[in-house]
């Protein structure tokens, strides 16, 4: 076989895409040096004075920094768990339905929210959970006092996680459903002949059949531990829930673009990038090790 000389063509194929990434991802990275400067906009990045790790030292004296990292990780981990389990349960339930038309309609409806933006859903959710909104009206029927959902710092992370899982579970269900259809029907037949109950079949045939998929998805989501969802939180939060709801990305946005703390914003952003890189690498090796699967 002659694959010699193909490399040249491979480079040619990749050239436009690489150029794109270089121009729009790599070039803007020069800004990372701001984290090590006393940035003076008048002098620009080239003219500003370097101050080494000063900003990083200040960053660690701020209670905010720890707090936003903590919030980010908590929210992201809850999202990861929710987005693994809820779709799995939903897929298993849907799999039990034998009316194809109904099954398909439900499936189509539940991944609708995935396609809507957080700008839109944020506005809608705030309305629905408002003090006089439908949810509180509904609770009122059962004599529950109205609750200010999006003002409760202790509730906010759960609302964020809940609404994210709600938005995404339908879409994530697809992957499980596909794995479920991949299970050999003969296994069910055999179990049926043995007189196994529906529940036992679920336990002994269905779950083992999709175990690999579940493990792989879990490992892959590791890379998202520092991504708690800027778009979502940006459109939902308010100062009352900063203590539990402010994440790295929203904090960096406010620090850099509203409060003119350029150095601090860049430093925190950089810290996040580094940690994210380590996590992705970790998930790459874990996936390879446990499922013999190479992500990229």
């Amino acid at each position: 076989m002659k694959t010699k000389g193909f490399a040249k063509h491979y480079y040619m194929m990749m050239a436009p895409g690489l150029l794109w990434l270089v121009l729009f991802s790599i070039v803007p990275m020069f800004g990372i040096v701001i984290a090590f400067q006393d940035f003076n906009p008048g002098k620009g990045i080239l003219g500003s004075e370097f101050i080494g790790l000063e900003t990083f030292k200040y960053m660690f004296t701020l209670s905010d920094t720890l707090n936003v990292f903590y919030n980010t990780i908590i929210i992201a981990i809850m999202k990861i768990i929710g987005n693994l389990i809820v779709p799995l349960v939903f897929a298993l339930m849907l799999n039990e339905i034998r009316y194809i038309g109904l099954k398909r309609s439900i499936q189509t409806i539940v991944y609708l929210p995935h396609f809507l933006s957080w700008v839109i859903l944020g506005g809608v959710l705030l309305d629905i959970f408002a003090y006089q909104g439908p949810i509180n009206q509904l609770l009122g029927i059962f004599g529950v006092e109205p609750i200010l959902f999006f003002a409760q710092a202790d509730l906010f992370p759960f609302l964020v996680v809940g609404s994210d899982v709600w938005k995404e579970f339908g879409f994530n269900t697809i992957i499980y459903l596909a794995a479920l259809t991949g299970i050999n029907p003969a296994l069910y037949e055999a179990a049926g002949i043995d007189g196994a109950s529906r529940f036992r079949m679920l336990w002994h045939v269905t779950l083992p059949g999709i175990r690999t998929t579940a493990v792989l998805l879990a490992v892959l989501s590791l890379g998202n531990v520092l991504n708690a969802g800027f778009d979502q939180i940006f459109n939902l939060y308010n100062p009352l829930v900063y203590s539990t709801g402010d994440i790295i990305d929203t904090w960096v946005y406010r620090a850099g673009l509203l409060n003119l703390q350029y150095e601090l914003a860049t430093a925190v952003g950089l810290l996040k990038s580094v940690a994210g890189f380590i996590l992705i690498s970790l998930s790459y090796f874990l996936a390879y090790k446990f499922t013999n699967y190479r992500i990229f």
Partner: protein
Amino acid sequence: MLRSKSLSSKMTDAILIAILVIVAITCILPLWYTLSLSLSSKTAAAAGAVALWPVDFNFDSYKQLLQDSQFFKSFWISVQRVVLGAGLNFIIVPLMAYPLSKTVKDFRGRNVLMWTVIFTMLFNGGLIPLYITIQEYNLMNSIWALVLVGGAQTIVFNIILTINFFRNLPKSLEEAALVDGAGPWYILFKLFIPLSIPVLATVSLFSIVYHWNEFLYGLIFMTREEFYPLQTYIQQLVVSVDPSTMTEDQYKRMSELSNRTLDAAKIFIAMIPVLVVYPFLQRYFIHGITLGSVKE
């Protein structure tokens, strides 16, 4: 499949169906609520009297919307952005993915390039350097800023998905073509791409949804409202104004004009394209996601 007809099994079915239907309903409820709000009177909306059904049913907000030329301008910008963004994505993704799906043996630079690409996904210098860069490229207020910046950040994920899909295509196909003396371009365009329609449709869908829903770059790179894409336009309308820095006249006008029903009408119209597009792409992306991401 097993056909168990026992009573308890029927009960289980009924309960399952009930749960699934309720969950499905929660997924369209926000949509319904927004529609109700947009068809209600302004005072009812302000007083929070709207729950499931429109109060004082009328079409005023839609009539008003028809006169808002900026809404349609922004709508058109978003359409253009989606076409350009998804089109570019469709071309570049296979060109990047094909060489990167090779092993190091076939393509020596593969690992370095792969990690470079991953690196661009994880690191960034923050919004301010990005802004300066776009300014230097003279792309402020250009739709290409939205297409290229957003695209560069999402394309990597799409490339990874496609790499996985390519890897799972039967090796024998490529080997046979090589024996026949086919070159890499021929293999990619005549062999791989036709076989990869599901995954390419999927990444296109991702790209379409991303470009339609993204709002932040519109806010950053566009210096005037007339250049805003639709989600940016909606975001600035929905975000509350800061009265502490407002003049009296502004405040007065705001209180006269603030209009939740009109906002709801805009939000509802903004959802429609997505609602129209996704059922058509459904059958592709179900294949694309499952084949691309997870294969036993």
